[in-house]
C-alpha cells in the first residue's frame, strides 16, 4: 500500500512492518499492541467482526518484547532474526497450539488445550512471530460462510450483514479488518481462497504437500492444505516461506526444497507468459459483476504482455460431486476420534444403561453441529460395503480425470485463471438452510484440491451491482507455486494502479464497538437461544 509516516501501523503490510521493525522505527510491542487494540475495538460486541475465538495478548506481547530486546542488544542474535520476527499473525482455530485453546469451531473440543504445537506453529515460533490469537471457522472447516461455527458467525468487514466466506472466514476477516496483517488458513475445497475473494484479501492454497499438515485438525486428509492469508501477494509469499518445506512428521509432505517465493513476487513480469482461461470456470452461473472484473483482469494481463489462451477442462463439471464424496468419506473417518473417551466434551446419555457406545453416541450427538453430522453420515454411507465402488471408487476416478484435465491445460498455459467464487459475499443466513447452494460456492476452487495443484486468490475489484469484492484465482502446476506469486504480484500492481491504491482502502470504516470478550458473548447468545 501507499505508505507515509502518518499511516497507522495496522494498515501496513507485513513486508512494510518488517522493514520498519528492522530499521527500528517501531517496536514489535507497539505493532502487536496496535493490533490488539484494533481487535478490542472492532471484533467484539453485537455488531463486531468476531474474527477471533481466542485472543492471545499476553504471549503475543511477550514474544514481541523478546524480539525488541534482541534487536536492541544488536549483534549476531539480532542479525539472525527472521525478517518477519515481531510481525504478528492470527492462526485459524483448526491448527493446534500449546498455551491456547483449539476448538475447530466445535463444541466437542470446547476448552481443549493441545499438548503439542502444529509444525507450522513451531515455525512461527522459530521465526518469533507473535501469535495474536485463534480465528473463527465453520465447525471442523465444514462450510463456506463461517456460519457453521459453534461459537457464532464471523461478519464480513465490507458489510457486517454478510458472510466472510468459509471455512476460514475468521482469518480472512481478521486480515481485511486490519486486526492482523497475516493469518494462517486451511484449504480443503477453497477455505482459504473463497474467504479471500469475498473479503478483498489474498489467500493461497499451496501445492499439496508443500506445507506440513501436522497439527491441522484433519477434515479430508488428501485435500487439506495449510496456507497464508494476507493483504498483499508479497506478504503471502513471505509467510509461505516461513511455513513451507518438508516435515518428517507428515508423510505426505514434499521433500523438495522451497523455491524463493518472495523473489518471484518481486520479479513482477508476465511478458511472454501464457495464461489460460478455463472455459468451464466462468460464464453461466457466475454473477455479472464477477464476470466483468474477471474480464478486466484478463485485459490488464494482456496489456502487460501475457498471452491469454482458452483451455477446456471438461471433467471439472464432475469435480463438485466427486468432492462431496471423497471429502465426507475421509471426514467421517477423521472425526471418529471425537468420542468423549480421551479428551474434549463428554456427554452421558440421559437414560441408562451407561455403556461406552451410548456415551460415545450422546457425546457426538451433542458435540457436533448439523453440517458436521450431515457430512459424517454422507461419508459413512459412501464408504459402506456395496456402495464403496459406486461412490468413493468412482469419485477417485473423477479425481484422476481432473488431474488429466490439469495436465492438458498446463501443456497449453503456464498459469490458469478464473474467478475464485461465482458470487460476491451473500447475506448471513441466506444459504444456511440450503446446503447445495452453499456447496456451489466452491465450484471454482475445488478442482485445485482434487488435483493437489496450488491456487491463489487476489482481489479483482468490486462488483458493479453490489460494490462487494470479487476474487481472481490463479492456478499453477504442482510444485510451481512461484508462478502464482509472479503473476499475482503483477496483476495486483496493475489493479492497484487502476484503483489508485489497495482495494481495502475503499472498504467502509468499522466503527468501534464496546469492548466485550467476543467468544463469551456469542457463546452465551447461542445458549440463550
Amino acid at each position, binding site marked *: 500500500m501507499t505508505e507515509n509516516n502518518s499511516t497507522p501501523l495496522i494498515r501496513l503490510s507485513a513486508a512494510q512492518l518488517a522493514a520498519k521493525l528492522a530499521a527500528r522505527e517501531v517496536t514489535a510491542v507497539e505493532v502487536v499492541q496496535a493490533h490488539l487494540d484494533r481487535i478490542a475495538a472492532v471484533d467484539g460486541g453485537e455488531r463486531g467482526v468476531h474474527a477471533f475465538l481466542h485472543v492471545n495478548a499476553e504471549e503475543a506481547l511477550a514474544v514481541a518484547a523478546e524480539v525488541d530486546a534482541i534487536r536492541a542488544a544488536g549483534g549476531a542474535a539480532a542479525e539472525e532474526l527472521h525478517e518477519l520476527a515481531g510481525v504478528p499473525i492470527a492462526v485459524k482455530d483448526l491448527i*493446534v497450539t500449546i498455551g491456547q485453546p483449539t476448538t475447530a469451531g466445535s463444541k466437542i473440543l470446547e476448552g481443549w488445550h493441545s*499438548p*503439542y504445537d502444529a509444525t507450522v506453529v513451531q515455525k512461527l515460533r522459530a521465526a518469533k512471530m507473535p501469535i495474536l490469537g485463534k480465528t473463527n471457522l465453520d465447525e471442523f472447516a465444514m462450510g463456506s460462510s463461517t456460519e457453521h461455527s459453534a461459537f457464532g458467525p464471523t461478519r464480513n468487514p465490507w458489510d457486517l450483514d454478510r458472510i466472510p466466506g468459509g471455512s476460514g472466514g475468521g482469518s480472512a476477516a481478521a486480515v481485511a479488518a486490519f486486526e492482523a496483517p497475516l493469518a494462517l488458513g486451511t484449504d480443503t475445497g477453497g477455505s482459504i481462497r473463497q474467504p479471500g475473494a469475498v473479503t478483498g484479501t489474498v489467500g493461497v492454497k499451496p501445492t499439496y504437500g508443500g506445507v506440513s499438515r*501436522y497439527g491441522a485438525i484433519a477434515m479430508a486428509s488428501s485435500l487439506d492444505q495449510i496456507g497464508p492469508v494476507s493483504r498483499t501477494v508479497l506478504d503471502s509469499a513471505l509467510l509461505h516461506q516461513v511455513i513451507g518445506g518438508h516435515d*518428517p512428521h507428515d508423510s505426505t509432505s514434499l521433500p523438495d526444497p522451497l523455491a524463493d517465493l518472495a523473489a518471484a513476487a518481486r520479479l513482477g513480469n508476465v511478458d511472454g507468459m501464457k495464461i489460460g482461461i478455463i472455459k468451464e470456470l466462468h460464464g453461466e452461473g457466475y454473477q455479472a459483476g464477477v464476470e466483468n472484473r474477471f474480464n478486466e483482469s484478463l485485459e490488464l494481463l494482456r496489456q502487460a504482455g501475457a498471452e491469454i489462451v482458452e483451455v477446456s477442462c471438461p471433467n471439472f463439471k464432475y469435480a463438485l460431486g466427486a468432492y462431496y464424496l471423497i471429502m465426507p468419506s475421509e471426514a467421517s473417518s477423521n472425526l471418529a476420534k471425537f468420542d468423549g473417551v480421551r479428551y474434549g466434551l463428554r456427554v452421558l446419555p440421559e437414560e441408562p444403561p451407561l455403556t461406552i457406545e451410548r456415551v460415545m453416541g450422546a457425546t457426538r450427538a451433542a458435540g457436533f453441529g448439523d453440517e458436521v453430522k450431515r457430512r459424517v453420515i454422507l461419508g459413512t454411507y459412501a464408504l459402506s460395503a456395496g456402495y464403496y465402488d459406486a461412490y468413493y471408487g468412482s469419485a477417485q476416478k473423477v479425481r484422476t480425470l481432473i488431474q488429466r484435465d490439469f495436465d492438458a491445460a498446463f501443456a497449453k498455459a503456464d498459469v490458469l485463471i478464473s474467478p475464485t467464487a461465482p458470487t460476491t459475499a451473500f447475506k448471513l443466513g441466506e444459504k444456511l438452510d440450503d446446503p447445495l447452494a452453499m456447496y456451489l460456492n466452491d465450484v471454482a476452487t475445488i478442482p485445485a484440491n482434487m488435483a493437489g495443484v496450488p491456487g491463489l486468490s487476489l482481489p479483482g475489484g468490486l462488483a458493479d451491482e453490489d460494490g462487494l469484492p470479487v476474487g481472481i484465482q490463479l492456478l499453477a502446476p504442482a510444485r510451481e507455486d512461484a508462478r502464482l506469486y509472479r503473476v499475482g504480484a503483477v496483476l495486483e500492481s496493475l489493479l492497484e494502479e487502476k484503483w489508485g491504491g489497495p482495494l481495502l482502502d475503499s472498504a467502509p470504516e468499522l466503527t468501534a464497538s464496546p469492548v466485550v470478550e467476543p467468544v463469551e458473548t456469542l457463546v452465551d447468545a447461542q445458549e440463550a437461544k
Partner: protein
Amino acid sequence: MSTDAILSFEEAMEKYDPVLGFEVHVELNTKTKMFSSAPNVFGDEPNTNVNEVDLGMPGVLPVLNRTAVESSIKIGLALNCKIADYCRFARKNYFYPDTPKNFQTSQYDEPIAYDGYLDIELSDGTVFRVEIERAHMEEDAGKLTHLGGSAGRIQGADYSLVDYNRAGVPLVEIVTKPIEGAGSRAPELAKAYVAAVREIVKNLGVSDAKMERGNVRCDANVSLRPHGRERFGIRSETKNVNSLRAVEHAVRYEIQRHAAVLDSGEPVIQETRHWHEDTRTTTSGRAKSDADDYRYFPEPDLVPVVASREWVEELRATLPEPPAARRKRLQADWGYSDLEFRDVVNAGVMDEIEETIAAGATASVARKWWMGEIVGRAKNADVDPGQLGVEPATIVELSKMVEEGKINNKMATEVLDGVLAGEGTPAEIVEKRGLAVVSDDGPLLEAIDAALAAQPDVADKIRAGKLQAIGAIVGGVMKATRGQADAGRVKELILEKLGVSA
C-alpha cells in the same frame, strides 16, 4: 462353564473332515511404534509409552516405521512369500475405546507379503505344507481391563481401564489359506504350525516371540465337513489362543464341539469363540459374519510402501539360517540321535537346550535336565516347558554343583523344585534347605563310629573280608546324616577305619 455338547475326538474324526485356518499376530520388537516415535516396550506403567499420535489427538499424522517394514519383509521372505513392490495401508473403521482414532491403520487388500508356504514337520517326521495367503502390517490396539462384573469381560463390567502403551505397536498378521487334509492330526498340526511361526520370527530376531506376553497370538479357525464333501462347513474362530498347548487343545475341542452340533442336525454358528484355559473349552463370543462393515478405504495420511527389488534382495541376504537347516546343524553339533532329537523338538525345548548349552552346559547335561526333569514337570503343571521359567543359568549351576560333589543328583532335583517354587537360586536353596553333601570327614567319622559300635557283628564280618556287609554300616551312616553324606566317601572311611583294603 461351557454347556456345549461334544463328541469324542475319535467319533468326530470318523464322521467329519476338519479344515483349519490360522491368523497369527506377531508383535514386532522395533524400538518405536508402527506410526509414532513412542517406545515399543512391554510391561511399563500404563499410558507412559504414548505420545499425541498414539492417543489419537486432533491433528496428528502417522509416519511409518521403516524397521517395521523391513521386519515384515523378512517375515514374508521366511514364509516363502512374494513381496509386493507397491502396497498401501487402509483404515479399518470401528468404534471401540482401545483404538484411539476409532479406526485401525492396517493393510487390507494390498498386503506386503503374499502367496507363501511353510513346511511343518509333525512328530513322526512327516512334512505337511501349510499355504500362506498373506502377511500384512497393522498396528496393535490398546489394552482394556474390565473391572467389576464377572470374568473380566466387558459385559456386566462396572467400568473399564485402558492402557494405550500397546496402541500402535507394530504387528504382522500371518493368514493361512484353508488347511485341508490334516485329518486326525489337525490338533497336532495346529500346534506345530504356530510353533513353527514362532520359531521363525524368533530366529529372525524381529519379535521377542513370547506367547505368554502376547508377542505371538493365534486365532484358530475350525470347520468340519462330511468326508468326501468339497464345500467347507461353517467355521468358528477361537480368538487369542496364546500357548502352543492351548492351540492344540482348542482345535481339538472345537472339532469335538462342531461334530456334536452337526450331529444334532443344527447348523454351526459363524462366530468368534473365547478360549478358557482352565476348563479347556470355548464359549460363544461375538457373532461374526462376512458382512461386518469396516468401511475400509486407503489411508490418505500415508504414502504407499515401495519395496524395490534391490531392497528386498538386500534383506534376503541378511536372513538367518532357516529353522530346518538350523535343526540339522544343532543335531549334528549336539550329537543327539535322530530319536533323541525328534523327542527334543516335539517336547518344544530345542531353543531352551540351545540356550542352556550356550550358558555353559554340555549337550548331554542340557538334554538330561530338560527332557529328564523339566518336560515332565511341565506336563504335570499343564504348561509349555518354556513357560515354567527355568533359566539356562539355573541348570548350569545345578549341574556344576553335582559335578563338584556339592550335592548329589537326588538333591539336585529337589533344588530344581525349589527353584520352580520360587524359593531362590540353587545356591540359596541348598543353603536354606541344608542340602549340601556332607563332605567334612569329622561328622562322618563320628557317625561311622556310632554305626560300627551299634553293629559290632557286622564290623567283624567286614574285618573278616565279607565286604558286601558294608552296606549295613553305610546305611546306618546315611540314616544318621539324613542322606546328606556322600555314600562313596562313607565307604572309603569305613574301610580305612577297619583297616581293610577294598
